């Protein structure tokens, strides 16, 4: 019985904000029975050395992600659109602050 209970603990993804002004960044994952425990475990596991000022946890199965196999198709649109980057425009070379 114990083992099946343990196995039913869901997986959580952990995001840590390392200091004020920065985004929360994915740190890793862990198992926990509920959100409160997930937060506590995340604190113990991912912020033992002042790595964080804030922690988010969310159930792993609530994340939607793009399909790795359709990478090309999904992210195709920026290709051939160099004009979205400042480096595309070269004629201003030598002109200051441009």
């Amino acid at each position, binding site marked *: 019985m114990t083992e099946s209970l343990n196995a039913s603990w869901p997986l959580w993804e952990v995001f840590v904000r390392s200091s004020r002004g920065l985004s929360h960044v994915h740190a*890793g994952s862990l198992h926990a*029975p509920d959100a409160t425990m997930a937060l506590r475990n995340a604190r113990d596991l991912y912020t033992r050395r002042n790595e964080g000022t804030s922690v988010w946890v969310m159930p792993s199965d609530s994340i939607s992600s793009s399909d790795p196999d359709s990478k090309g198709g999904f992210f195709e649109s920026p290709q051939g659109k160099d004009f979205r980057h400042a480096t595309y425009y070269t004629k201003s070379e030598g002109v200051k602050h441009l």
Partner: protein
Amino acid sequence: MSTTSQHSDAAVADIEAERAGQQRFDEIIAADSRIEPRDWMPAGYRKTLVRQISQHAHSEIIGMQPEANWITRAPSLKRKMILMAKVQDEAGHGLYLYSAAETLGTSREEMVQQLLSGKAKYSSIFNYPARSWADVGAIGWLVDGAAIQNQVPLCRASYAPYGRAMVRVCKEESFHQRQGWEILLELSNGTPEQKQMAQDAVNRFYGPALQMFGPPDDDSPNSQQSMAWNIKRFSNDELRQRFVDMIVPQAEALGLTLPDPDLKWNEERGHYDFGELDWDEFMSVIKGNGPCNVQRMQHRREAHENGAWVREAAAAYAEKQARRQQDAADAHLIGA
């Protein structure tokens, strides 16, 4: 269309997808880029990684035992706090690694069961006892030191979640090695008895620590494939040599000797030569005949069983809270 030809169409599509997957995988490896969990990967690659990462996780978990044995007897409050922090780090390393292995599709429960049933292996170094306080120093300096030598190149392992876990682990390990070295330094500068205790500890852990890199390259048939897959970056013997070159001056700084009469600088090679290790003993410890194999497994099983009520209580509480929330939501719907 008949059922048979539908089947064979599906089979052809599978083979095609397999071929495209293999090609993409080979390109990623050739470019020394990283494989992510949802990418196609060869079955052998997945299997090798699950074995290696879960064994690594088990080693961190079992590896807590020799040192945890000394927490209650640490010689000062400061040393006790340092040792507790180190042992807690090792638990954390185990969890980072289990998470990485889980991304390959093997459940945590399955890995834990493999460890508890004795089916899974862990690093044989942890089947040696920590007999004295000096052993805690020797373990930190030599065992964690050898682990770092092994783990730094693994930060660049082709399987990305493994590499990311190793980056975290390596950041934490350097404190482990230094605190161990400092324990030995204090003893070495202490009374003659204390110095002797430090020397004894080094004498006992030197050989087993060198064996942590695995058997000599000629007897390590899987290494080639792991290197071709960019999981392993250096051979066992290369890593061992680097480790020896690193610890010789560190031992000198301690004022202690390393128990190897063949250890000497080789001008031509630019490396230290060292003697043959006792590989019969190594194999015997792996097979279960080390001084502490039985004790380590028994302790792990007991710890798991003794923690069962905590896991059960936490799960029951979570379930109750979820049910209450559901009931409240239902009541709200009816009320509206």
